[in-house]
């Protein structure tokens, strides 16, 4: 018997595959992981505490910086919470614009995931292809909001800007183009034997475990539970569109990949329908008081972000600022299962599993 020794390996916060400033301290035996301790908090900015001294409209830009890959959904969740408290009716056109930008954001976010995941696995090209399409989407969002990532687009009661002329047509033309590119991705990656070997059966967890760990989004749907708040608790206009909730049973990285790729297609369906139903005219923001003061009380809303269920809890004392604000940040919850999944895996699988969870550090650290 050869005497072996366990080694402590520090992965991150500066590491190419931790997607930001995530750090994980591994105890390894050869290349096999014996124990994994994630360390988070390097990007903590205290959004929730800061919000206690800000007016509601001023909080919106802070939410952009949480999940910076899908800032529109974050914008929406805070607006939605305040609107629920104040019972504000949203003009139809504003609601359509919100759905459009959120779904475009979802496609962009999944594209970033697809690209970086393949980069983690070692394929370089898909990353650049995915970013070409993402660039187009960011162009649309830039045109409508004036920013490429931190949009600050939604307001309580509607959206800040109406769609510029020709914008809807451009988005309409984008849908078939994106479908074509998506078929290209499948040709390049989905059938690749090496890729399949890397993801199939890796990072498996069961339905029960997924529920126990409170996973959501594609991380839950990969176990076969078709739970999507857009379908199960429709908010905004999602009850007007027909789309499926893709779910796969195998519970591994391969199912999570298939899930996200299928979700891009579903989002495209929603965009297609929203563009068709888009009202010709109308207001983009409801009549809301100059200073927003939700009544005393509390509210919790949850919506489906690209990463899972994002929730927003507001406790109001009837003042301009919230008494307490809390976000349920899906990346943070989804990350909790990581140490359990890593035990007994090797370092290559660490990258596959971590990438498969799809975390955004801005959201994990809050």
């Amino acid at each position, binding site marked *: 018997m050869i005497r072996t020794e366990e*080694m402590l*390996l520090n992965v991150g916060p500066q*590491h*190419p*595959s931790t997607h930001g400033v995530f750090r994980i301290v591994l105890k390894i035996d050869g*290349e096999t992981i014996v124990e994994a301790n994630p360390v988070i908090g390097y990007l903590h900015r205290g959004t929730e505490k800061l919000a206690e001294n800000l007016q509601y409209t001023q909080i919106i830009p802070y939410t952009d910086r949480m999940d910076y890959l899908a800032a529109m959904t974050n914008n929406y969740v805070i607006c939605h919470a305040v609107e629920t408290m104040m019972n504000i009716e949203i003009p139809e056109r504003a609601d359509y614009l919100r759905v459009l930008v959120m779904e475009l954001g979802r496609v962009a976010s999944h594209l970033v995931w697809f690209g970086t995941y*393949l*980069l*983690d*696995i*070692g*394929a*370089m*090209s898909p990353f*650049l*292809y995915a970013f*070409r399409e993402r660039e187009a989407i960011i162009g649309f969002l830039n045109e409508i909001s004036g920013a490429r990532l931190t949009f600050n687009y939604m307001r309580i009661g509607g959206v800040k800007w109406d769609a510029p002329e020709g914008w809807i047509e451009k988005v309409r033309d984008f849908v078939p183009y994106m479908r074509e590119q998506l078929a290209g991705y499948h040709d*390049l*990656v989905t059938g*690749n034997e*090496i*890729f399949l*070997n*890397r993801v199939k059966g890796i990072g498996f967890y069961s339905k029960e475990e997924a529920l126990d760990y409170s996973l959501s989004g594609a991380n839950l749907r990969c176990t076969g539970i078709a739970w999507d708040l857009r379908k199960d608790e429709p908010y905004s206009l999602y009850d007007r569109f027909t789309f499926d909730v893709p779910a796969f049973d195998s519970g591994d990285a391969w199912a999570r990949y298939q899930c996200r790729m299928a979700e891009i297609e579903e989002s495209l369906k929603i965009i297609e329908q929203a563009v068709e139903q888009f009202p010709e005219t109308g207001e983009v923001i409801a009549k809301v008081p100059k200073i927003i003061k939700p009544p005393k009380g509390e509210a919790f809303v949850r919506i489906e972000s690209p990463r899972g269920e994002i929730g927003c809890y507001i406790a109001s004392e009837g003042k301009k600022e919230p008494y307490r604000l809390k976000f349920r940040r899906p990346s943070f919850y989804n990350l909790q299962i990581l140490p359990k999944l890593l035990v007994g895996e*090797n*370092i*290559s*699988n*660490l*990258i596959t599993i971590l990438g498969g969870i799809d975390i955004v550090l801005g959201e994990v650290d809050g």
Partner: protein
Amino acid sequence: MVNDLLTSPAGWIHAAIFFGLGACLLMIVLGFVTYAILAERKVLGFMQLRPGPNRVGGRFGLLQTVADVLKLLIKEDTIPKAADKPLFILAPVLAFAPAFMVLAAIPFSNHLKFSDLSIGLLYYIAISGITTVGILMAGWASNNKYSLLGGMRSAAQMISYEIPLVISVVGVIMFSGSLNLTEIVEGQKTVAYMFLSPLGFIVFLISSIAELNRTPFDLPEAESELVAGYHVEYSGFRWAFFMLTEYVYLFAMAALTTVLFLGGWNPVPFLGCIPGIVWFALKFSLIVFFMIWVRGTMPRLRADQLMEFAWKVLLPVALLNIFVSAVVKELFLR
């Protein structure tokens, strides 16, 4: 001329001539490395919707690599405090020297060759094995956990893939009846060995990519897992040496593939008017392009899958190839 020199008795003048020729070869190879790196970046760029180098040296970035190398030369030479200093310094040299030594055995055309070893093929395989020691040494001497993992991976990988690589050329040796690379090329006058032993060719091509540590077998330096693998602590010109090793091996391996399987400088039928060296360059470029193409397409294998693939797939196929080659030789080449 070279043939006369090779067969004539040794003397100081001959030594000087060979030294000059060696220096010439070094320049040619370095020139190749410079432009191979540029070509790789350009081709990958075209595949990946980006222009690649396009500033230094005109709009094709012709001097980009030169600028990169200059930058590496003037960089501060750092050696980590905890590193094993003598080994740390020795490792890049030990990795690089064999890469260059193997070139001596390769004939580039009928007239352009620097030696005529009767065991040319064996020499190549034996010498190239030394590089593994250099890489393992670099991984160990850096005293860094990532480089240690990278070094271990690469040692395991290079040793495992050397075996199918060697066995896959047995077919070629059987056809030509010689280990001399010139004779192997002469044996392909009528038909290239890649058609006679397609299995061997495929196994050889895959194993050679693995030997070169290139995608999809670039585990030793998997940048998304091990940051940079065995050379994570290296910087400046020592690091450049590792890169140089890699590209010189790319040169050598592509040349060897051309010699063994693509018929070296033998022309394609009916196009004999084009000189042999041009054919060699064409076939050689084809192999290099193929390797760049693979890099643009494939994801990376996992360490255990890599080993499994070498021992459970490539090795049996290579063994089968010996049998098939024997049958082919018996039936068609009598």
